[in-house]
């Protein structure tokens, strides 16, 4: 699988994503610079990594969504190319209109950095194909603006279309207010577009995909993409 990792000024999970894809999973991986427009036709996956692009000025992801590389990413996504946005990458996908909804400040107003458990809500996507039905993954979150918001009507539509891929849950897979770390509507932790080729998630799968570190639950997301590319 040929992968591209976009580097924005302020990205700080780009090297983690590169490390997992290139060194742990042995995939051909390239850097994509935010100032360049690029022909991405030959790529199988483009990753928008986490971080603080443009210092989170105005709103997280707002300025980055107008970078030259995003024109290329939008063209790539519209042609069916697979795009994965993690944390700040998710915020950029929402700001660019590739995914529905938005992310607002955590209900607690605190930056939350901890391991959480999420339940897989739909395994019929290229990002979750290797997962079991309702499988629970332990993946870390690290964010201040991670509370997913969309109006109730659109949230129902997302549910009906199977566009919600992850929900925050307890270790047994139960979704409740207590297991929702940030106040996201519907406990939503990750969504996909209608075509299911663009996915954004707040948890960081690249932070739990190297066997030398504790936990490898995040690998299944990348493995799903690799085996189905």
């Amino acid at each position: 699988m040929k992968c591209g990792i976009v580097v924005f000024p302020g990205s700080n999970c780009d090297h983690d994503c590169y490390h997992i894809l290139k060194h742990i999973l042995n995939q051909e991986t390239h850097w994509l610079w935010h100032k360049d427009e690029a022909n991405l036709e030959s790529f199988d996956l483009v990753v928008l990594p986490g971080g603080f692009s443009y210092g989170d000025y105005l709103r997280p992801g707002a300025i980055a969504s107008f970078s030259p590389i995003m024109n290329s990413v939008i063209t790539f996504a519209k042609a069916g190319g697979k795009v994965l946005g993690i944390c700040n990458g998710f915020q950029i996908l929402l700001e660019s209109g590739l995914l529905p909804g938005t992310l607002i400040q955590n209900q607690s107003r605190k930056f939350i950095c901890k391991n959480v458990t999420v339940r897989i809500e739909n395994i019929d996507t290229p990002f979750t194909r290797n997962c079991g039905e309702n499988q629970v993954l332990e993946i870390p979150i690290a964010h201040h603006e991670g509370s997913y918001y969309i109006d109730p009507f659109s949230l129902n539509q997302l549910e009906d279309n199977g566009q919600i891929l992850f929900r925050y849950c307890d270790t047994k897979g139960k979704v409740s207010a207590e297991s929702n770390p940030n106040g996201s509507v519907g406990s939503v932790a990750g969504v996909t577009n209608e075509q299911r080729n663009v996915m954004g998630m707040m948890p960081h799968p690249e932070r739990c995909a190297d066997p030398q570190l504790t936990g490898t639950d995040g690998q299944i997301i990348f493995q799903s993409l690799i085996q189905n590319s």
Partner: protein
Amino acid sequence: MLAQIHVTFKEGVLDPQGKTVHHALNDLGYDEVLDVNIGKYLEIKLDSVSEEEAEIRVREMCERLLANTVIESFRFNIVPTE
């Protein structure tokens, strides 16, 4: 010319910051405070544009970049500067 722009959360969107300030004001004895909505205020200096054009272009700026219309609404005034 100067565009004075206010961006605030739409009704129904959770505003944790506003909620906290609301509680703090009540704690200080301002029981009349019913709700607090914290937003952004932007001032944009404009040149070489008529007032009519400015209205159109500032609205476009708000819709494209300055406000996230999923959760935020905006309003603005165009005022003359010396």
